[in-house]
């Protein structure tokens, strides 16, 4: 079963161009340039505070950029060009753009007072005006995909962390997004629950949807990534295929980071 119901020629091409972002006086992103091809699985790694999550959040305009542009399939996210200036888009347009980009959070952020099924159908019905019956059928299909067909009526607190994150993934997919962003999807999970979530993401990686994943799971990155980007201090230090970057890092900073996160016995 393919997760993307319709295949369009350009679907999920992300282009980040010289993006700067500061919180007060601290600059968290410096001149970020990044292209993600359609269907590519891009993994971003790096130490805490390196700007990985911030970069991810600018892609669906949860964070505004100070300078530079981000576009999805050639359309600027959050801004419009008019008379040589970038004008912020209206609320309705920004919301419409966000439905094209799915996001999975570190802490799942499932709506606690809604069942798994209600969590999934909320956005299709109210952001996309999908008929209720159709949205529910699709939600059940997605729950089955993530192996939780029997949990449709469970509330998030009745589910384990791994199950909650799988529901959250199903919720992100319900809008049939062009790109799915994962913000440390396994960081809040017990080690034994990490695998079930990673399996779902791996399955998704084969489906041809563009994925951008921030993670600390180096082993997973090596398995699933088409390309790994290493960030530090708000800059992209280096990038390459998993084999290039993990086995043969060029920069000192990358080497020292990898030596800390990869156990000595770990064989690449």
């Amino acid at each position, binding site marked *: 079963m393919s997760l993307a119901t319709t295949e369009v020629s350009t679907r999920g091409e992300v282009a980040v161009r010289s993006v700067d972002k500061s919180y007060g006086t601290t600059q968290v992103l410096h001149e970020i340039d990044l292209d993600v091809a359609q269907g590519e699985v891009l993994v971003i790694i790096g130490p805490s505070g390196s700007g990985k999550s911030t970069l991810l959040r600018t892609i669906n305009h*949860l964070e505004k950029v100070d300078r530079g542009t981000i576009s999805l399939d050639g359309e600027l996210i959050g801004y419009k060009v008019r008379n040589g200036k970038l004008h912020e888009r209206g609320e309705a347009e920004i919301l*419409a753009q966000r439905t094209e980009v799915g996001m999975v*959070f570190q802490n799942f952020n499932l709506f606690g007072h809604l069942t798994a099924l209600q969590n999934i159908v909320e956005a299709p019905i109210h952001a996309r005006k999908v008929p209720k019956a159709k949205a529910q059928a699709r939600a059940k299909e997605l729950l089955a995909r993530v192996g939780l067909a029997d949990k449709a009526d469970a509330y998030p*607190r009745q589910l384990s962390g791994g199950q909650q994150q799988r529901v959250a993934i199903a*919720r992100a997919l319900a809008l049939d997004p062009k790109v799915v962003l994962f913000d440390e999807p396994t960081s809040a999970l017990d080690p034994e629950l990490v695998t079930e979530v990673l399996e779902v993401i791996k399955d998704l990686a084969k489906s041809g949807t563009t994925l951008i994943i921030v993670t600390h799971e180096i082993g997973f990155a090596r398995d699933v990534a088409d390309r790994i980007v290493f960030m530090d201090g708000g800059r992209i230090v280096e990038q390459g295929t998993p084999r290039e970057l993990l086995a043969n890092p060029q920069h000192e900073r990358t080497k020292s980071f990898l030596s800390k996160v990869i156990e000595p016995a770990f064989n690449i």
Partner: protein
Amino acid sequence: MPPTSTRVTNPDPVQDTTPETALDKVQNTVQNTESETVQPVVTPSYTTDSAIADYKVVAAVHPWRWVGTVVVAGIAAAILYSLITNPRWEWGVVAQWFTAESILRGLGQTLKLTLISGSLGFALGFVLALMRLSRSPLFSSVSWTFSWIFRSTPLLVQLLLWYNLGYLYETIRLGVPFTSITFAEFQTTSLISQFAAAVLGLTLNQAAYSAEIIRGGILSVDQGQIEAATALGIPRWRRSTRIVLPQAMRAILPTAFNEIIGLVKGTSIVYVLAYSELFYTVQVIYNRTQQVLPMLLVATIWYIVITSVLSVAQYYIERHYSRGALRTLPPTPLQKLRGFFTTHAATGTSINSSKGQL
């Protein structure tokens, strides 16, 4: 080490069937001597454990609770006795007036005022809370100013000002400001009745307070919930009403019910407008009959009845909004009672079925 340990001995722990070398034999002898000292300790402690496992569990005894219960019951009995036997309470008069037509009409007015100004106040409060939390500096400062004004002036003054608006502005004109174009013109005194002044005063005052209560509730909802809803492209109003508000309700409800119960009794302040709600009616009666204490009791008992009904409602409404916040909902008092009379299994099913309805 227990002194009994020496009683148990290990005859021959190592019975190896494979041929042994001389060295093995030496090692075995060493092990034998070791196990002879270690083994006895293990065996008796196991027997003790299995004995403990068969013991009955006795719940902690709270003798002082019983003493306390007796003391409290004694005090309660004393108070009840004095209430019933003291002739100054004039229970006969209380009974006579309790369901009198004028009292019931006053009660109706009290309930009407509470219902209208309570619901309008909280609705306006919700909008004010959203305005206050809005990123728009215009909305936020308008909301702040509203709360500031209505919280800093006494309700009594507000009510009198609304009622006497006709003194300040004889007519109210709908038209274009600073021109003579007029669409409609009203006499203020005909527009602002006692009821209108009471509702206006109570509603606006209630809105100012409930705005803060609702804002507090909204702030207690995890920011991640709003972020997730935003990332899913859910429109702002839907985000507030469907995602944030139901989860904020858990924090809002206890204080909100405080406010509503306060409002039930707070409506008595509109007696200054000579508006015939419960308290004003009672005053009118006792000024005539001089039976002050029993008439105050009549009003008090009605206020207690309303508050009790609201408290029960509060329990069930809070329970409704704890859906999803608790793994399983606790049984209601009724279910507890039923469970007390039926078996354990029956209690379990009754809880589960009621959860499905909620």
